[in-house]
């Protein structure tokens, strides 16, 4: 009898202990979704989004303005490239400023959330625009180097021809000169169309392919090897003419 009473007591205790578990599940099921947040919570979240969003926009506008100042002071960019880049950066600054005004005026959470996301996806300031400015500046510098190599090649060819007419064996010199010309042409073929391609890049291109700029950086690395080899050829010809 005592054993039966003890068994019933233990069963009752187990059933009683199970009650809080189902109660917790019930509480979780009744937690309000974000759309059903209280008005106070929604206001707080909206305010937080606006604060974070304006800070992110301000940071980007500040960096873009620094880039504009550098562009304005640059003496090594081609005039057309400088003008195109300046226009693109100014457009981003103006659009981000307009977005900031819109975000501050937003009154619902969903719109504010979309606006904050667009700070990144519609502008790509750090991963596209600012690197793009640098890449165009580098490509313009390649043009300067390639022009100097071509001019030097012409001058050296005249000297080598004169040395040959004077009876000097110029076989090795001519070989270096030919290599210099070929390497310069290789570099030019790698860089001549880059600026147009870079200027045409849009945030959507980065969104579709995060490695889009690496292709251009790789081309510049290969072109740098070419111009360095051409420079070394020129040095050997100059030394050989002395």
């Amino acid at each position: 009898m005592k054993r039966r009473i003890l068994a019933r007591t233990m069963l009752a205790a187990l059933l009683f202990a199970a009650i809080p578990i189902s109660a917790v599940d019930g509480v979780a099921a009744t937690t309000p979704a974000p759309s059903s947040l209280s008005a106070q919570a929604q206001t707080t979240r909206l305010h937080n989004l606006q604060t974070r969003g304006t800070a992110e926009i301000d940071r980007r506008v500040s960096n873009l303005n620094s880039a504009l100042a550098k562009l304005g002071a640059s003496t090594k960019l081609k005039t057309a490239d400088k003008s195109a880049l300046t226009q693109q950066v100014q457009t981003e600054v103006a659009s981000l400023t307009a977005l900031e005004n819109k975000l501050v005026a937003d009154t619902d959470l969903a719109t504010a959330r979309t606006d904050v996301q667009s700070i990144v996806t519609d502008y790509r300031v750090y991963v596209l625009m600012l690197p793009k400015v640098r890449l165009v500046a580098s490509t313009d510098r390649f043009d300067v180097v390639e022009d100097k190599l071509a001019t030097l090649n012409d001058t050296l060819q005249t000297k080598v021809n004169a040395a040959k007419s004077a009876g000097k064996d110029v076989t090795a010199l001519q070989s270096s000169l030919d290599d210099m010309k070929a390497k310069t042409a290789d570099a030019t073929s790698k860089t001549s169309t880059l600026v147009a391609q870079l200027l045409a890049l849009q945030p959507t291109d980065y969104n579709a392919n995060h490695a889009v700029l690496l292709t251009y950086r790789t081309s510049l690395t290969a072109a740098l090897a070419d111009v360095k080899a051409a420079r070394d050829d020129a040095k050997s010809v100059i030394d050989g003419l002395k």
Partner: protein
Amino acid sequence: MVLVVLILAAIAAVAYYFYGSKLLPGSSKSSTSSATAKATPTPTPAASNNLDSSLQSLDTSLGDLGTNLTDVDSVLNDKEGSLSE
């Protein structure tokens, strides 16, 4: 008589002044030949200097290019910016 001597002395002094200060034509053969010698170029060293300065100019541009490519890499690897995007 004394007046004639004084006049001759004055003419001699004036002539010496102009001759001595090389204002008269043909007054200094040595200086003319020196000027000619200075104007004569020395072809080989000058040509060599031109080539060397062209190479130096090229090296300057290559150095500038290298610095710019380093800037490109630092912007491409900007962790703070990349992480925020």
